[in-house]
C-alpha cells in the first residue's frame, strides 16, 4: 500500500472539511494508516531477523524430521531455568486454612452424587423394602425358597458356606449371603467357622435356636 500517497491525499482534502464529523473520519483514517505502518514495520523486522524462514520451507523441513531429531534440536538449544520450589509461610497458612475448611467427603459430593461418600452402614429388611429391592411378599417367598434349598442340599449336615452361595455372579452371591444371614439371625440356620482353615460351614436347624446370637463377619468378594 502506498502510505505516502494516502497521507498526501488526506492533507490535500483537509481544508475542505468544515464539520467535526468529517474531521473525525479523517483522523480515523490516519489511525488506520498508522496501524498499517506498524504492521509493516513488524513484518520487516521479522524478515530481517535470522528467525525468518520461508513458512513453506520450514513446514517441509518439520515434516521431514523424525520426532527424535526434533526433540534433540530442542534440547540442544535449551537452557532450563534453575529454581527451588519451596513453601512459604503464606503458602503454609493457605494450606492450613484449606485443610481446616475442607468439608468431609460425604458432604463434598452430596450435591453431585447424592448419598455417595457416606460411610458403610447397616441395611435392614425395612430399608430394602423401602429401596424397592424387595416387596414384603417377594422377600418372604425368596427366604423360604432359600431355606428349602439349604435343607435339601445339606440333608441336615454341615455344608460349605461358600459353595452354598454359588458362583453365579457377585450380585447373586451378595443377595444369597444377605438372605442366609437373615435365616441365621432368625435362628432357622446356624453357622460355624474354622479359624485355621478359614472354612465356614452352614447347617439348617429343625427348630429355632434359642442360644444367644453371635456376630460373624464374612467377606464376600467377586472371586470367592
Amino acid at each position, binding site marked *: 500500500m502506498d502510505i505516502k500517497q494516502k497521507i498526501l491525499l488526506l492533507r490535500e482534502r483537509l481544508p475542505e472539511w468544515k464539520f467535526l464529523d468529517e474531521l473525525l473520519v479523517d483522523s480515523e483514517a490516519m489511525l488506520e494508516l498508522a496501524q498499517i505502518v506498524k504492521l509493516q514495520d*513488524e*513484518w520487516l523486522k*521479522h524478515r530481517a531477523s*535470522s*528467525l*525468518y*524462514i*520461508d*513458512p513453506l*520451507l*520450514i*513446514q*517441509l*523441513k*518439520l*515434516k*521431514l*524430521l*523424525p*520426532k*527424535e*531429531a*526434533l*526433540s*534433540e*534440536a*530442542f*534440547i*540442544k*538449544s*535449551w*537452557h*532450563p*531455568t*534453575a*529454581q*527451588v*520450589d*519451596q513453601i*512459604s509461610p503464606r503458602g503454609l497458612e493457605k494450606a492450613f486454612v484449606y485443610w481446616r475448611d475442607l468439608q468431609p467427603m460425604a458432604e463434598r459430593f452430596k450435591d453431585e452424587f447424592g448419598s455417595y461418600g457416606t460411610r458403610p452402614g447397616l441395611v435392614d429388611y425395612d430399608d430394602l423394602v423401602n429401596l424397592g429391592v424387595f416387596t414384603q411378599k417377594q422377600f418372604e417367598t425368596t427366604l423360604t425358597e432359600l431355606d428349602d434349598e439349604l435343607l435339601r442340599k445339606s440333608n441336615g449336615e454341615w455344608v460349605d458356606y461358600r459353595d452354598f452361595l454359588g458362583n453365579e455372579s457377585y450380585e447373586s452371591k451378595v443377595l444369597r449371603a444377605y438372605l442366609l444371614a437373615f435365616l441365621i439371625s432368625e435362628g432357622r440356620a446356624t453357622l460355624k467357622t474354622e479359624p485355621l482353615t478359614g472354612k465356614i460351614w452352614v447347617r439348617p436347624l429343625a427348630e429355632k435356636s434359642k442360644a444367644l446370637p453371635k456376630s460373624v463377619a464374612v467377606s464376600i468378594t467377586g472371586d470367592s
Partner: protein
Amino acid sequence: MESESADRALLERKVRRAFQVLILQRGRNPGVKGWELKRYLGRDFRTILEVLGEDVAPMGLEVFEVKGADATDDSSRFLLRFKEAPTVSEAEGAGIRIDDLAVLAATIAFVNSKQARVARREVEQFLREKFPKWRVEYSLDRYVKRGYLDVDDRAMVHIGWRTRAEVDEKTLMTLILSRAQEASKK
C-alpha cells in the same frame, strides 16, 4: 581501608541476597521482575547481578534477562538458567518425554516462521500430520500453561516468555534446518 572492606561486605551480602531471590520461586513463574530486584537490591541491581553471574558461572549457571513488553528495566524478568544446554540423556533422565519436546520444537519453529503468531487451529492442523490428535491438544495446553507458548483472546498462538527465557530460538531453527537436510540426504 576500613570503608573498602565495608563496601565489599555490603556487596557480598547483596550478591547473596540476589542469589536467594532468584533461586527461590515466588508465585507461579520462575524469575524476578526488575522492579522487584530494585526493591530487594537497590538501584544498582544490575551491577549486583553481574557479580552474581561471575559467581555462579563455575556452577554452570548464568543470570539471564528476558525483556518485557516495554523493554524497561522494571518490566524485564531476571532468572538463573543453565549456561549450557543439557544432553539428551540428561533431559530423558529428568523424566521429559521426547514426544512432548518434539511437539514444542515443531510449534516454536512453525510459529516463528509465521511472523511469531498463528491461529491455534492452524498449528493443531499442522502438528496432527505428525503427532496423534490427543498428544497435540494435550501438549499445546500444557506448554501454554507452563509459559512456553501463549494464546491470546483471538486464539492466536505466540511464543511464550518462557521460551524466550530458556530457548535459544536461533540455534533451534538452525538445528532444525540442518537436521532436515541430513534427513533428506539419507
